[in-house]
């Protein structure tokens, strides 16, 4: 019988666990605090999650005081996440898993755990997130509701961190939905009627998926009696439950047949679309897919065909749409949908090559696509339109933006030595080596379409005859951010060994095989 009675039952335990080079085994439910010294890494983990998540709510207060202070502290919070994530890299490369947990009743233990996969994803999110926040300094300056913008953007990134490190399905869902709430506010940032409608649409579509996924989570709970991912490792999931979970993942990752909210969400300010479409939000689905279906459950062969088919259809349909659309950001958004298909392909193959390729894809696509969206932002803000039929010849007035755009586009197309090449190669190659030649061919067609629509976009916006006044680049900071992303895309390719090392550790932890 439930009773309202104040009693501090149970214990708050901070645990830290090391598992050298082995796939993560069962995480002990509750352990006593080992020693203060060992808490250090746990604290790193907490900083990564809560510096932005909790700190965000200070931002409106800072904003009342000083705009500059608010902007800089937003950046600092995200950088703190990045720093904390990077600090976890050496351990992750050695195959160590840092974990931190508070035991809770009914399986609701709040557990964070940083394996290589999580660290990888955390770095991608916070790295791109930091650049986007930096970009926002000059971009958002011109609009109302700046406090809300920074709060929500930072909350979003914090929730992303939480999601990445969570090993409890319920908390994963919690962070998942926080990102949904934040993106709802962010998409409706301009407050126009259409904007808010699109924000609602995005929210509803992703929430629908999330709710279906919640049914799936409960089904898993019903099967295993736990929400703890580590405890359910190695379980074979019935296809029905997988399908329920998959609906959530697909909707969050804007994959067919839940893709249409993403282009619509292009009404948001460009840094937001960069954040949502490129780097972070849409990667949630693929990340959780990797976390659940590759890292935790026994990989189901039937799932391979299903997911790969969906991914293939998604890649082609949205690439086709990108060739027809005339709105700058919608095109890039469709491109995201298409590229997410590639990531799903890599994961769906269930082999080491595909999974590693998918991870690299997350990184490379995040960097490059963020660059594309931010370029779109520069163009939109300076030229006052994002209709590509009304743009043209901007390479003359915006040479840096144009070149950075092109470089990022090369990376998305998968042209070496840009990072996008390696990831694209690896995922398609995974299909081939998995004897799935048809999927390989489909995605090859997708890659071709990618080249076509990105060049179409580049040609229409930056080349050709100018329409009206050629708007110049007004903010050096914004241009610098875009150039930085382009440069990172290139460096990511030239130095592909670095992310690849981490990805390989992640794969070995996930699949239990050496990459």
């Amino acid at each position, binding site marked *: *019988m*439930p*009773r*309202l*009675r*104040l*009693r*501090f*039952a*149970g214990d708050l335990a901070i645990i830290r666990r090391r598992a050298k080079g082995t796939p993560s085994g069962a995480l002990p439910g509750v352990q006593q605090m080992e020693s203060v010294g060992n808490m250090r890494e746990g604290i790193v983990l907490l900083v990564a999650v809560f510096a932005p998540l909790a700190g965000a709510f200070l931002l409106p207060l800072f904003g009342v005081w000083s705009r500059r202070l608010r902007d800089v502290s937003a950046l600092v919070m995200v950088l703190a996440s990045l720093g904390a994530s990077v600090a976890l890299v050496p351990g992750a490369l050695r195959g160590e898993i840092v974990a931190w947990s*508070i035991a*809770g*009743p*009914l399986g*609701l*233990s*709040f557990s964070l755990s940083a394996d290589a996969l999580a660290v990888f994803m955390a770095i991608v999110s916070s790295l791109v997130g930091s650049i986007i926040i930096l970009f926002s300094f000059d971009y958002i300056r011109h609009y*109302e*509701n700046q406090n809300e913008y920074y709060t929500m953007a930072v909350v979003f990134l914090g929730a992303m961190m939480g999601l990445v490190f969570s090993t409890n399905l*319920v908390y994963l*869902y*919690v*962070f998942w*939905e*926080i990102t*949904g*709430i934040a993106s*709802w506010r962010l998409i*409706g940032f301009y*407050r*126009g*009627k259409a904007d*808010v*409608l699109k*924000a*609602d649409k995005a*929210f*509803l579509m992703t*929430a*629908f998926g999330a*709710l*279906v996924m*919640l*049914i799936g989570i*409960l*089904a898993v*709970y*019903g099967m295993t009696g736990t929400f703890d991912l580590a405890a359910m490792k190695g379980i074979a999931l019935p296809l029905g439950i997988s399908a329920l979970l998959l609906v959530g993942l697909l909707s969050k990752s804007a994959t067919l047949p839940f893709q249409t909210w993403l282009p619509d969400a292009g009404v948001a300010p460009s840094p937001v679309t960069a954040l949502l479409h490129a780097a972070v939000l849409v990667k949630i689905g693929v990340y959780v897919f990797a976390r659940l279906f590759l890292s935790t459950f026994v990989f189901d062969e039937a799932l391979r065909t299903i997911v790969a088919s969906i991914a293939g259809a998604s890649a082609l349909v949205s690439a086709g749409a990108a060739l027809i659309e005339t709105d700058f950001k919608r095109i890039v958004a469709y491109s995201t949908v298409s590229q997410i298909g590639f990531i799903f392909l890599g994961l769906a193959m269930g082999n080491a090559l595909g999974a590693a390729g998918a991870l690299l894809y997350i990184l490379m696509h995040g960097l490059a696509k963020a660059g594309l969206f931010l370029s779109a932002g520069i163009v939109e803000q300076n030229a006052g339109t994002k209709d590509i039929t009304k743009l043209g010849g901007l390479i003359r007035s915006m040479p840096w933006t144009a070149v950075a755009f092109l470089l990022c586009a090369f990376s998305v197309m998968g042209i070496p030595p840009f990072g996008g090449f390696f990831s694209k190669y690896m995922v398609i190659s995974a299909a081939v080596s998995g004897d799935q030649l048809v999927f390989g061919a489909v995605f090859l067609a997708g890659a071709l379409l990618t080249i076509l629509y990105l060049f179409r976009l580049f040609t229409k916006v930056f080349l050709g005859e100018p329409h009206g006044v050629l708007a110049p680049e007004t903010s050096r900071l914004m241009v610098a951010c875009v150039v930085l992303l382009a440069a990172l895309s290139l460096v990511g390719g030239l130095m592909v060994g670095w992310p690849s090392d981490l990805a390989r550790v992640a794969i070995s932890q996930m699949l239990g095989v050496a990459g």
Partner: protein
Amino acid sequence: MSDLLLLVPFVAVVLLYLLPKRARAVGLWVAFGILALEAAAAVLDRFATVDVGLLAPLEKLLGFHLATDGLSGLVILCTGLVGMAALLVARRTLESVNERFLFANLVLVAVVGINGMAMVRDLFSLYVFVEVTAVATVILVAAGRGDHVLEGAWKYIFLSVVASVLMLTSLGFFLLSTGGITLDAARTGLAANAPLAWIAMALFLCGLFVKGAMVPFHGWLADAYTAAPAPVSVFMAGIVTKASGIFALLRIAQSTLGGATPGREILLVVGAVTIVVGAFLALTQTNFKRMLAYSSISQMGYIVLALGGDLHLGILAAGLHFFNHAVSKSQLFANAAAVEKQLGTLDIDEMGGLGARMPVTAGTSAVASLSIAGLPPLAGFWSKLLIILALWNAKEYAFAAVAILASLVTLAYFLSLQRKVFFGKPLEKWAGAREASAGLLVPAVALALVTIALGIGFPFALRILLGGGA
């Protein structure tokens, strides 16, 4: 001390009337103080133990057969919180001292009724206290000023009478079949599978369904909520309907039904139907309060649905949802009051972009909306999760799925509300609108903070809740 919960407000009402008319402004604060004490008592969990020596003579004299448990504490806590919020709203929205005084008095009367319901162990007493609350509430509704006030009150009375008839009939049947009308007696009768006892139970449940506005017994609710003055709707939506209908169901499910067939199935079906119909009804409403009203119906369906799940978890979940919804919905009605005070209208189609003018109201309403829609990390998510878990544990998968997917409709109408009222471009028409006064903001902010805090600290809270049992 449980007797005090009945006596103190009652005595207070009587004493207030002895005050000189000049001093009537005090009435509101007296009521506020009593409610604050009530909430404190519920939280501190002292009312069952402290009074043994001190109040024994009084108890003996009165001879009330009261019993308290966690559920009583829960409803008393909610009453305290919601009542305080309603009183604060009343302070800013009711214009004359006299109106506020009367409001405070009637609230106190209703509170006695609710407290009584919280603690009785007897079906007839339950019925009596339900009626006490109903009468006080009807008068509260009728005391308003609008054109539709009487209509709302009238519908409330009318269906209340139906409920009374059903419940009285039921009591008669209980007397016939089991010879007793305590909860335990009824339980024995049901356990024996006596058909007449089950019919009696069904009728009593139907009476409570009317009170708790379960579909299809819900006709009165939207009109009454909409017609009622702002503080009254806060109070009604926050606690009255829930206590007199839903809490009573909770009590019966806990003490009498015990998860037996067919009571459980009735609760499941009625709950599910209510959730869905209420949610769809809310979707296209254009009156702020009416939308909230239908939302209330839908959410109360969740509580009833939970009662059909795994018994222990279900009651825990229902209780939590009860609390969360009481907090959030009264807060939303307080928000509605703030908006109405600024704009003079409740038609959401005429509103727009108020977020820019009333940021605190907008922010708190968003918190409450999302909490009710069951979005983490707010409190509403956890109670819904537990509800669904309870259903899942009872292998009621289809009902669990309905409960989950109906959340989407909930989210849809709340998003539509947010979009039309707060989250849009500021309209020229409302350039004069300002943030509501502190008096209206305090309850909204306080309740929103409760929602957030409970949401974030939920697992700890749950640990505490489970500490005693389960």
